[in-house]
């Protein structure tokens, strides 16, 4: 384990001491086992086993185990249940930054059948908080809960072992919670074999202009064939990024995030003899004029996307 992870472990250790092995309960079922609930479960699951509803006394399908002591929609347990919260530890992990949450396993064990009229209660124990691990979703630990289900006569009728991963989501993780909305970004250009050199050039801090290798005519935007001589041989020349404003506009409405409003756009006749459309900054929209000398900086506007952005040349 590296040192950084070890520091993080130190923060979790008090939670292990406090919560592991602490058994809380009882949590009471809202209702006694009834024929109606069994019918609903069987109808929903498509379970037609004759034992469940066929006899004098209905028998509950064992897979209903967890459902008996479910909380209601408000998160409340049935009256008579403990006030202690099994899941307090999960909240503590949230506070440490492991706010990602995903259930990774759920194993049940069935020991006794429940019959119509039985009343269930359960106890819950945090049985383990694992060492920190680096997962595909992010760094986090596995928290294991053991739930024990009892009949009214205190006979253990079944257990459930549930493991959660509590993690700090990676930046790129798809498991990011909905509480962190995605930032609106610029539309990314399509880079195909005809234009990839242009966008890569910008990422390398260069404004590259295509030039015909046979007749020397420059062209922009990129295209595979020279329209002057039909040659498909070309190379690029690095632009000085200097030119003069040929035309301009400022976009006031609608506001298009993430752009400033107004967003000033210029058509620039570059010294290399081609025209290019780009943003201009550092000048008020009503101060723009045709013929103004301008020069572009190459700006990484968002990760992996660089663009020429002009400013008025002093």
């Amino acid at each position: 384990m590296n040192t950084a992870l070890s520091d993080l472990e130190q923060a979790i250790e008090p939670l292990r001491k406090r919560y592991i092995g602490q058994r809380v309960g009882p949590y009471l079922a809202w209702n006694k086992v009834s024929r109606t609930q069994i019918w609903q479960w069987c109808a929903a699951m498509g379970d037609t086993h004759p034992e469940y509803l066929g006899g004098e006394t209905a028998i509950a399908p064992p897979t209903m185990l967890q459902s008996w002591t479910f909380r209601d929609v408000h998160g409340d347990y049935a009256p008579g249940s403990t006030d202690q919260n099994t899941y307090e530890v999960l909240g503590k992990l949230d506070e440490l930054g492991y706010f990602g949450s995903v259930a990774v396993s759920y194993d049940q064990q069935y020991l006794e059948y429940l019959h119509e009229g039985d009343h269930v209660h359960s106890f819950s124990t945090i049985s383990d908080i694992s060492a920190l691990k680096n997962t595909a979703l992010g760094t986090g630990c596995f928290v294991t809960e053991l739930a024990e289900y009892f009949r009214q006569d205190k006979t253990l009728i079944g257990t459930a072992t549930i493991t959660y991963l509590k993690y700090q989501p990676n930046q790129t993780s798809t498991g990011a919670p909905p509480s962190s909305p995605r930032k609106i970004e610029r539309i990314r250009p399509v880079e195909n074999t005809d234009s990839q050199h242009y966008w890569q050039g910008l990422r390398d801090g260069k404004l590259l202009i295509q030039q015909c290798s046979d007749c020397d005519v420059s062209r922009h935007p990129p295209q595979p064939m020279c329209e002057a001589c039909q040659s498909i041989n070309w190379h690029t020349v690095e632009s000085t990024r200097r030119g003069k404003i040929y035309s301009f506009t400022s976009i006031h409405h609608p506001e298009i995030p993430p752009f400033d409003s107004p967003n000033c756009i210029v058509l620039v006749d570059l010294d290399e003899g081609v025209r290019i459309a780009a943003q201009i900054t550092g000048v008020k929209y009503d101060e723009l004029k045709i013929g103004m000398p301008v020069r572009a900086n190459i700006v990484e506007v968002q990760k992996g996307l660089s663009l020429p952005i002009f400013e008025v040349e002093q």
Partner: protein
Amino acid sequence: MNLPAVAIVGLGATEFSKNSGRSEMQLACEAAHAAVQDSGLTGSDIDGMATFSMDNNWEIEIHRQIGGQELRFFARTEFGGGGALGPFAHAVSAIQTGQCQAAIIYRAMNERSGLRFGSGEIMNMNTLNPDMIHFSHYFPTGFMTPAAWIAMCTRRYMHKYGATSEDFGRIAVSMRDFAASNPAAFFYQQPLTLEQHQQSKLIADPLRLFDCCQESDGAVAFVVTSLERARDLPNTPVEIASVRQCAVPASRQITPFYHADIAHFPEFDALSCDLFRRADTAPNELDFACLYDHFTPAILPQLEAFGFCAPGEAADFVKDGHISRGGKLPVNTNGGQLGEAYIHGLNGIAEVVRQMRGTSANQLERSDQALVTAGAGVPTGAAILRKQA
């Protein structure tokens, strides 16, 4: 070569609104069916279908629902509103060469209640889509609305000829005057003053709110067939006297930035003479025009390209009232796309048909011959339509 003449014989349209409340397919079927009924033909007579890109309704779906049998000709033209006269060019050719006998031309869109063109959301993120490859040079900078693209041309026109925002405002006022007396228009009974235009908010400088057409829901459809057959049908035939598409080397899909001079729309300059020659007419013989007015300033270079006035004189031509009610070349007597609705040019063509039938809300005394144009700032087209006895 003496080719048989082709005419518009049927016209159908839905109402124009901001929320049609029904699917684009239903709008298309309603307009196409109305056009067939209007023409005096039946669905089974229709064996050709033509539209232009950004319409989301497939030819075969409409054809089946209006009672079509075998479909022998179908064609779709690229470049959105610039393609508005493409279907006419193609249907005329198909009818003249016997590929089909009667074709429906249509446009149906929920452009206001569905995907809005002016929102900056026109995008197909499919990386193999030619639109996306093309717009990659503009979208990442936020340069992504038609108003902003056309504003670049407008700025050059102002720079070259000294035109002002008020000159554009007078165009809006003229269109809204026609719209105010057209019950089918959005702006029916809502004329505009120059002052209101000047006070409206900036959209993409120098374009103001009232320089821009309105995104609309609605559909328009036509039936075209040979003039010979048209003479046996109930409506006054509107002959397609000439129709022409045009792109020049620097033409781009609605980003007309690379022409040597973007104050003009070089596609119109290039096609104009040939268009008149093939219709055997001249600018001063036209009674009116329906010019593509997605934005007011687009009218000015069009008036010049088609020879109604000299280059640089269009603003004065407008100021002198020539394109307005009572002028010598009334333009967009339905209120245009600025005042009636934005059905990508087809509602303007519908107005020409009504004028020639004598059924326009703003009926002209003389309406025998007219010019119609498709979108400006894109590969485009134009046509001369002529009333036939």
